């Protein structure tokens, strides 16, 4: 049967990838019949109503799912479809309590019109009590209106759907994890809604192991733990994990939400000198040995609000005393190792290579990267022979946007060995932050050519 998903009309490019990821998590065969970025209504084919409820239950961007009884360009077409395809269902709802609601997207109807539209369904023969609070069944008439239909005086919607309500998404979760009420955040904490969507795209689920190499105050691990995963994280700046060492700490955030069971371990480390054990890439691996994580999620530093640095000395010739000083001092508990600016593109490559070495087969890596909206300054989506791009979602700001890119670790025997050989070791030249990071340079030049 066909089902109607009612999306929220926001973060449009994230909606379908999220639903497709949820279908993978739940093992549901999902076929998309019709979908458009401009409309909140999506028709899908699913094996059962139970599957539809399971599919939607942890979706952040879908509001509800409905058994689709009829659809058409006008109300007459909807009624014709309902009468043609659903009469065998009507008897099931003849005596239960029920209510009808009208959902007009970009449009409005007067109270009298609403009653007229609803009464037009009287032929369904529902004789049970009408109950506005907690009815046994809810039937919804959806109308898709053109933009500004009310001020323009447009008389009719462009498309209508009629369906039986089955289940709601998890639109309450972003409120539960709202940054405004979180004890401990920093300047670049990811907002709760997008962190949860990222967790869905990374297939976070009970029993899974997730790692965030740029953990900061823990926005992604918290979102993943909310879905039952056990999370690990590291950051080059240990202060972000420790916080004030009292209440405002990363651990305190997990405590606040009662998610401590999902806190695996946090440590201070640098991705380019990571202590995580890795398996060398091979063509004949058994798909698991030596690989640890089900998912890697991160929002790496863009080099604008927070510096993009790795361990090392920026210019060893100009400051030769730093290295011998480090040799003497590194055992001091207050010793802070020197760091140098690093190339943004090299870092993206490092993340992908790290993911290829540490993800189990079909494990996912989801990370955010910024790019200029101007085509000439756009930064391409990075690629790796051991990873297949699953989805690219874009959140657009004024002159730049950021993308959430998700990859799947493909099994060794599906990797093209030639592609790995030809993966040239790109050397990123430059010493200063601007030279190394085209996005940072474009950002501070206001994206002017």
């Amino acid at each position, binding site marked *: 049967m066909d089902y109607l998903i009612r999306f929220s009309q926001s973060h449009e490019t994230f909606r379908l990838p999220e639903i497709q990821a949820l279908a993978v998590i739940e093992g549901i065969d999902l076929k998309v019949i019709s979908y458009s970025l401009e409309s909140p209504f999506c028709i899908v084919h699913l094996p059962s109503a139970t599957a539809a409820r399971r599919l939607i239950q942890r979706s952040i961007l879908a509001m509800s799912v409905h058994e689709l009884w009829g659809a058409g360009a006008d109300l007459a077409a909807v009624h014709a479809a309902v009468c043609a395809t659903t009469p065998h269902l009507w008897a099931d709802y003849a005596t239960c309590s029920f209510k009808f609601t009208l959902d007009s997207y970009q449009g409005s109807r007067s109270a009298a019109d609403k009653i007229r539209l609803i009464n037009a369904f009287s032929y369904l023969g529902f004789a049970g009590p009408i109950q506005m609070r907690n009815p046994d069944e809810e039937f919804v008439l959806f109308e898709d209106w053109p933009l500004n239909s009310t001020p323009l005086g447009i008389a009719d919607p462009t498309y209508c759907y009629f369906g039986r309500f089955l289940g709601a998404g998890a639109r309450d979760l972003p409120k539960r994890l709202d940054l405004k009420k979180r004890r401990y955040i920093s300047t670049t904490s990811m907002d709760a809604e997008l962190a949860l969507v990222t967790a869905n795209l990374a297939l976070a689920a009970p029993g899974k192991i997730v790692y965030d190499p740029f953990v900061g105050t823990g926005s992604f691990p918290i979102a993943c733990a909310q879905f039952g995963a056990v999370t690990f994280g590291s950051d080059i700046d240990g202060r972000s*994990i420790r916080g004030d060492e009292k209440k405002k700490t990363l651990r305190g955030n997990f405590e606040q939400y009662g998610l401590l069971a999902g806190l695996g371990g946090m440590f201070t480390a640098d991705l380019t000198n990571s*202590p995580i054990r890795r398996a060398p890439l091979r063509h004949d691996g058994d798909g*698991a040995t030596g690989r640890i994580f089900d998912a890697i999620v991160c929002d790496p530093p863009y080099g604008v609000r927070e510096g993009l640095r790795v361990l090392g000395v920026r210019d060893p010739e100009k400051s030769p005393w730093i290295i011998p000083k480090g040799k003497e001092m590194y055992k001091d508990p207050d010793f802070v190792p020197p760091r140098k600016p690093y190339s943004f593109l090299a870092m993206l490559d490092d993340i992908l290579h790290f993911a290829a070495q540490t993800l189990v087969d079909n494990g996912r890596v989801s990370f955010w990267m910024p790019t200029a909206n101007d085509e000439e300054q756009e930064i391409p989506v990075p690629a790796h022979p051991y990873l297949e791009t699953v989805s690219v979602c874009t959140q657009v700001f004024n002159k730049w946007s950021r993308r959430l890119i998700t990859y799947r670790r493909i099994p060794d025997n599906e990797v093209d060995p030639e592609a790995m050989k030809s993966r040239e070791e790109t050397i990123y030249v430059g010493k200063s932050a601007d030279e190394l990071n085209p996005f940072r340079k474009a950002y501070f030049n206001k994206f002017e050519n």
Partner: protein
Amino acid sequence: MKVLTLNFLTCAVKTCKSSSDSFPLHPKDAELASDDVEVNPQLLVNLLPRIDWNALRTTSTELGFPQLPEQPPTAEELGADEKVLKDLHSLLIETQIMEGKLVCGHCGHEYAIREGIANFLLPSHLV
């Protein structure tokens, strides 16, 4: 830091990566604590194939726990025997190293653990 985390970590120094002595890191002057966490059988079953069992045996002995069997339990054994499940849960998930050091068996570098958070940043001469 959980004992489980220790099983995922080697020495961060690049020249140590090829040496088998750099894994597992050896705890030194470790102060242990135990967290109360609900047993999650699904997690332990998922973890089993990813744990390096020999390394875990070494760590477990070094921290003063009873010797683990030579072979890891199978997923069926974990499901059938609650004691095996609980013991493994208590060692991997509940036991935390709060203070102390982790020492690389190859280069001897010491990584400090403070309040349960280990520091793997390297001074410039080791990068």
